[in-house]
């Protein structure tokens, strides 16, 4: 069965790849994922804020006590190699690139234009085949309106595109007033791909201690539905290739993602839970399913259930909402 697909301009033998996760930094795991047949490796985000924060905090922790007390003018050895910055990440990009044959997609989450540009360039120099820009941003300022947030993302993409020659995908959050408009603007700004969606890590509240708790729940197939809807809405309407990220756990999930228009299917929770082998399993099962259902190729299925081609497009639109609410009541 021909499962081949094109994502960010890369001709891939099939659409299944691990999404951005800590395993993308672990050479052993990366090798295992490639062995399991991953179509590409997506590395987790380099967070510009984190680098700045660590740089400030470390400088503060090391410099403030220094040169204060006669007997201890410093508390740490003066090591040339100790540098706070993206080097550690870039070194990993280099190593991952050397370790695997499949495309390596580095990810970047930044807050300033300077940071985006510098790091994107460095990633490209380190050998990344593509970059996934993660525009994770939580607006908390009442004076900052949606358009400001969107414009900034567009500006950043434009700048990064101008700075690097490799393909650039944008990983979106589902919280835009109009995802099609936002996607259209990104498409115009020459995004090579759109990744739907980023999963927000939302803190929980401990009602006993009145503290915020950072929790990380792995996704479930439930989360897929949101992706399916917007993949279907965008499929066939943007030049950028589309990736589904979040909620793909079974072969059925993966097939749905492709049917709604995904060129690539990223898996994280399922891989973390079941190990890299799950990539191979899904790929095999997908081939079997396509054969059983007498598809000629994956391409034939790609986008078959999108807004334009689906037999009941209203299901993706507002009518569906009304319909479900009513049926729920009736149950």
């Amino acid at each position, binding site marked *: 069965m021909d499962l081949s697909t094109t994502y960010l301009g890369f001709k891939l033998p099939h659409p299944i790849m691990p999404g951005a996760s800590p395993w993308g930094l672990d050479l052993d795991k990366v090798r295992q994922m490639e062995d399991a047949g991953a179509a590409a490796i997506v590395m987790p985000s380099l967070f510009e804020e984190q680098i700045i924060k660590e740089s400030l905090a470390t400088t503060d922790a090391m410099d403030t006590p220094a*040169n204060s007390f006669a007997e201890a003018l410093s508390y740490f050895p003066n090591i040339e190699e100790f540098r706070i910055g993206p080097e550690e990440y870039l070194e990993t990009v280099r190593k991952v690139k050397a370790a695997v044959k499949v495309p390596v997609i580095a990810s970047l989450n930044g807050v300033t234009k300077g940071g985006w540009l510098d790091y994107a360039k460095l990633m490209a120099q380190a050998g990344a085949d593509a970059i996934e820009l993660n525009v994770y941003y939580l607006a908390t300022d009442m004076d900052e309106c949606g358009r400001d947030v969107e414009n900034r993302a567009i500006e950043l993409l434009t700048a990064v595109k101008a700075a690097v020659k490799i393909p650039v995908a944008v990983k979106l959050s589902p919280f835009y007033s109009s995802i099609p408009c936002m996607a259209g603007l990104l498409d115009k700004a020459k995004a090579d791909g759109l990744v739907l969606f980023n999963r927000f890590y939302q803190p929980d509240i401990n009602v006993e201690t009145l503290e915020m708790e950072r929790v990380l729940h792995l996704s479930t197939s439930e989360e897929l539905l949101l992706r399916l809807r917007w993949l279907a809405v965008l499929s066939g309407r943007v030049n950028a290739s589309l990736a589904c990220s979040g909620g793909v756990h079974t072969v059925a999930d993966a097939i749905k993602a492709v049917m709604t228009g995904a060129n690539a299917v990223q898996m994280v929770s399922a891989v973390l839970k079941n190990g890299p082998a799950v990539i191979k399993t899904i790929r095999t099962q997908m081939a079997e399913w396509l054969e059983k259902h007498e598809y000629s190729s994956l391409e034939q299925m790609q986008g078959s259930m999108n807004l334009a081609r689906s037999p009941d497009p209203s299901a993706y639109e507002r009518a569906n909402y009304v319909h479900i609410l009513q049926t729920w009541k009736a149950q």
Partner: protein
Amino acid sequence: MAEKSMITVDANEAAASVAHRLSEVIAIYPITPSSTMGEFADEWSSRSKRNIWGTIPFVQEMQSEGGAAGAVHGAIQAGALSTTFTASQGLLLMIPNMYKIAGELTPFVMHVSARTLATHALSIFGDHGDVMACRQTGFAMLCSNTVQEAHDFALIAHAATLKSRVPFLHFFDGWRTSAEVAKISFLADEDLRQMIDEDLVKAYRDRALTPDHPLLRGTAQNPDTFFQQREACNPFFDATPGMIQEYMDRFGKITGRQYKLYSYEGHPQAEKVIIAMGSGCETIGEYIEWAVAKGEKVGMLKVHLFRPFDMKGFLAAIPKTVKAVAVLDRTKESGSAGEPLYQDALTAVMEARNEGTSPFAVDPKIVGGRFGLSSKEFTPAMVKAVYENLGAAKPKNHFTIGINDDVTHTSLAYDAEFDIEPANVVRAMFYGLGADGTVGANKNSIKIIGEETDNYAQGYFVYDSKKSGAITISHLRFGPKPIRSEYLIRRANFIGCHQFGFLEKYDVLDTAAAGAVFLLNSPYGTEKTWDHLPREVQQQIIDRKLIFYVIDAYDVASKTGMGQRINTIMQTCFFAISGVLPREEAIEQIKKAIKKTYGKKGEEIVKRNFQAVDDTLANLHEVKVPAKVTATVGRPPTVSPQAPEQVRNVQGVMMANKGDSLPVSAFGADGTWPTGTTKWEKRNIALEIPVWDPAICIQCNKCSMVCPHATIRPNVFDPALAAKAPEGFRSVDYKAPDFKGMKFTVQVAPEDCTGCGLCISVCPAKDKANPKHKAINMEPKLPILEREKANWAFFETLPKVDRSKIGKVDVKSSQLFEPLFEYSGACAGCGETQYVKLLTQLFGDRALIANATGCSSIYGGNLPTTPYTKNKDGRGPAWANSLFEDNAEFGFGMRLAVDKHAEYATELLKALAPQVGDDLVKAILEADQSSEAGIAAQRERVAGLKAKVAKSSDVKAAHLGTLADYLVKKSVWIVGGDGWAYDIGFGGLDHVIAMNRNVNILVLDTEVYSNTGGQASKATPIGAVAKFAAAGKATGKKDLGMIAMSYGHCYVARVAFGAKDIQTVQAFQEADSYQGVSIIIAYAHCIAHGYDLKFGLDQQKLAVDSGQWPLYRYDPRRAAAGESALKLDSGAPKIPVSEYMQNETRFRMVEKIDPKRFAELAKSAQEAATKRIAFYEQLAAVNIAKPKADGAKDAAQ
């Protein structure tokens, strides 16, 4: 001749640079002020810097200086070119090996930054006490007087020792030279190669011990031969001075710098000559240049070679015209006929006279004097006084200079105003806080000026004796000629005051020369600053016609994201105003330095610093100085008028930085000081302080438990007393049943709090509607200072809770006991002091504390004020520090004395029963002292006993009177850090544990040598970076607790108050109640771990939750009861060790340098933690059959 390049370094770096390049094996141990020599060597080797033969020297940290000496002795016996670096007590520990090395005629050089020996007090500062204690070892002793000489003589020593075979002690003055930054000419590898004779290296290796041509050394000899063989080495010593001179001559040819063993400077027909060694010679030289130009016939003999003492060469160097000689020694030998150099000078002159070879026209008068002990200032004014003394008909002998000895009247008077500093030297002083980065910026400035201009530069830095809110004073000189002024700046033409508050505490402008520039960091702006200056400061500005600039550096820092770091801003101001460099060039150089300093810490830091530089100039303004003083308020007195007389007259003067003015009579003769003096030093270093909200508080007292400085205190009191409370004093009904009907309060000492925030971090009580608001919250101090001062004053009048009324001692009730350790100089947020404070709360009124040298002895005993204090009955901890290495034995000795006193008192009591009364005797001897009530009752009995025996004329009764207090039980504590317990003092610690006497050992485990600046100890955990473990320690932490447990009879607890405070409190009580030896190993977070200490408690929790620091108590009383002695107090690990590690720079550094290595080390740490806990769990499950003897009675609770 190699191309000359100039470098700006201190003498430690200058000497180490040569030593590292000429050695193969370097064994060291940290000790101030020599530690940085070892650190440089380690840093260079870890960066693969090679010696002149192309190989990277091994650098090995040992467990003590004794260990380092042993290691180098072994290395040189086996033929490796070796060196070591040390000072002070560390040098003393090397003496046994030094005798051996010299006796065996083994080429070797050690470099010593000479430091005061501890006598009546420890001092980290400089004099020749330590090196003079080695003059009998047989080492050649070569003294450098300047940073350049430290560089040059290091090479001459390493070269000459190979030829002479006599080992060398190369030394220079600790601090004044070792830490002085100066511009010097660098010796390239090629220079070194030209000085080292390869055939001598070969000969050296040929003498090595090797089984390939075996030899034997270190025999034992008998009366028949020892003496003769001891004399057999004489030819080598006789030849050594000549050989050194040969190498000095060769060195002169190579570098153009010609040295002499005994170097004369001054008038060729001098009549008055001073003979001296060390940095003081430069100051004498400075005076001589000035005096000879005026026609005075004065001169100086600089002694570079002290051993072997070449009498002929020495005499030959002194002008024949000399009539009077003053020999200055920078050391004191109580009870001697005179100090060493003086005695040698006398011997030389007398021998020549006796032999008829005296070169002098007339027999000169010779006197000796002492100067500069513990880095005491030595100025041209003092030099002048020494020459003037020589002019007297009967010059004072055995004099002192630089102090006012009004007791035995040894001191020479001098004119403190006398000043001869050359006019072409820029003299700049900077008053900063340690935390604001002033010193670092000044070191950069010196490098900029030293390396980018033709000027010579000198930098010297004076630090605080406190570790929090520490003041630094930088002294920078720049001039066209090498700078010889080896003393603090006395007339500054630039003064930078980087903290406005200093103007109210210190006489910052005392040293301002007329017309000097005064730069002030002021929050009040150009217009208003003048009005905020104290009267004295205004007067000085007007009188001395100072040019006055202000900048609001904190405002610029905050706007450019620099936080509290104003270093770059103030540095930019200095360059902008001082004109040392053209402004544009200066800014370019500052930016270059920023890039170099901060580049590896991240681009963002560099950017922010650049921005700060750019924004500075627009905010720097000159103030138009009014013609008249307008201020009505002057500088407040340093110490409250309520303070005891001695505190006002002695400690108060020291607090104001005027301690130099105190005469000898101000001090006790034996180094004894009263306790309880920190309370008079109101340091006011916090910008924000915690304020208690009684409405939210659940009265758990955890805030008090975690406070490092005992500045937050709870109390319960009679509601009737509340009537007298000032307005704004907060209290609430006490909630628990034990003091029903009483009021409860929590009060902060607003002027003593350091603002660390640990209390906020621990507070569990939150406002339900606004959980951000806790029962204790930080508020800006200034607006509430007066109110809180009044509250604190009232709080102090409240009676303390009656100790005997407190039932169960837990975290909450322990904090109602008065802390007898308060307001120490420890770092803000320190993680050690809570344990010390708890100790004093629980047992302070009956505790003797032996304290190993280290952080705890510094914050516990560094003058001017000390934190151990007394309760209202006048009882409190008696505290002493002996040494670093002997503390377990020291405390053990205290126990022996206390036990002997108690035993003898018991014997006397029994013997005197007929006089005292059987009932009282019985009651005293059978008293149950296991509770506070029991102790109080015993104290009463003993008071009665003392009253009775006082009436008796019996000698025994008199003895009993002096010893009766020992019938009340005492608690002996042996306190120190991990460097002491795990490394240098371990042998003694082990022995004391084995002896099983009733002593309690408290190990404050920061897992690194904190006091000397972060060197690895055997307590350093795997994966942590430390000095001498720069790649991250590859081996695990020594399990000291397990070693102690192996004896079976030792109570052992491992605690972390931030993780489980109640377990800490239990452990302290059990350790005290256990009648044998106890050890508590206490986790202490530390600035050397590299994170904001307000998260210290969180890190303690993570350490325990990850299994990195398991909590347990091993109580032999449980074993006696047939249970397992070991009880694990922390559960199975809940999180991976890496989660704990990733928050601390000490671990993160490894991850940044080498992620793979970090992963491996983290894995090893995890495995070790898992194994350790499994092992402890199994041990905790071991039950031993209950012995038949009735041993269960006093089983553990």
